[in-house]
C-alpha cells in the first residue's frame, strides 16, 4: 500500500476503500494548495518526501487510528508539482459511529502534519522560491501517541535556513 502519490488524489476512491455496510459513517478531510502564503501570491508548489520514512510513518498513523477507534482508514499525500487548488492530502475514516469517524479523521490529519517527513517548496509570483517552514514546528513523539516523560522540548529551528550558508 502506497500512501504517497505523484498523481491527483481521488477522495471518492479513499471513501470507497473504507466504506462497508457495517461502517456507515465516513468522515473525510482534504487540504488543497492555497494561492497565498503570508501575504504573497503563490503560483504553484512542489512537495518532496523522505519517501521510505513517509510511507512507514503513514502506515503507523493508519494502524494507530484503527487501534484507537473501531474504524477503517485510508490516506494519501501528493508529492511532486502541484497547482493551486489541487488536493495535497486526503483521508477518510469509516465507522459505525460518527464520533469515532470524526475523531479518527482528525487524528490522521494532525499526525500527518506532525510526523510525516514531507517538505514544501513554494514558487511565488514575484519569482522567488522558498521552502515552507512552519514557525512552530512541533517535535513528533517517538511513541505512537503521547510523548513519554522526558521527551525533549520541541526543537529550536532558529537559524535552520542559514545552516551551511
Amino acid at each position: 500500500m502506497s500512501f504517497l502519490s505523484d498523481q491527483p488524489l481521488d477522495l471518492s476512491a479513499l471513501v470507497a476503500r473504507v466504506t462497508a455496510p457495517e461502517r456507515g459513517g465516513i468522515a473525510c478531510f482534504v487540504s488543497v494548495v492555497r494561492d497565498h502564503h503570508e501575504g504573497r501570491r503563490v503560483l504553484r508548489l512542489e512537495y518532496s518526501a523522505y519517501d521510505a520514512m513517509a510511507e512507514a510513518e503513514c502506515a503507523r498513523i493508519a494502524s494507530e487510528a484503527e487501534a484507537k477507534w473501531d474504524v477503517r482508514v485510508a490516506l494519501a499525500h501528493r508529492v511532486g508539482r502541484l497547482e493551486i487548488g489541487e488536493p495535497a492530502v486526503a483521508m477518510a475514516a469509516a465507522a459505525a459511529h460518527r464520533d469515532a469517524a470524526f475523531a479518527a479523521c482528525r487524528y490522521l490529519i494532525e499526525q500527518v502534519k506532525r510526523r510525516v517527513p514531507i517538505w514544501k517548496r513554494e514558487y511565488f509570483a514575484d519569482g522567488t522560491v522558498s521552502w515552507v517552514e512552519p514557525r512552530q514546528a512541533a517535535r513528533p513523539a517517538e511513541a505512537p501517541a503521547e510523548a513519554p516523560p522526558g521527551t525533549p522540548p520541541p526543537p529550536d529551528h532558529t537559524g535552520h535556513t542559514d545552516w551551511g550558508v
Partner: protein
Amino acid sequence: MTVSTASTVTVRVLLFGSYAEAAGQTSLTLSVPAPATVASVLRLLRARADGARLPERPLCAVNLAHARLDTAISQGDEIAILPPLAGG
C-alpha cells in the same frame, strides 16, 4: 575485527529540503566513535564547514522512525536530519 572497527560506528546520513540545499548534498557516510547516539552524528556534522549552522535540536530519524538526540545508533543505521515538516 580490528580495534578501530569495533570502536567506531559507520552510518549513512541523509539530508532533506533546505538542509540538503544548504549542505549541497543529500547523503554522506560518517564514522563516529562508539558508543554513538544521534547527538554524536550531529556533533560531527557541525564540525564540518557546511554543518556549522545546523540548528541546536533538529528533527532526526533513525531507520525510518523519529528518534531523540540520545537515541543510540548502530553500525549501518540510516540517520536522517529533517527540516521542519510541511506536509498536510
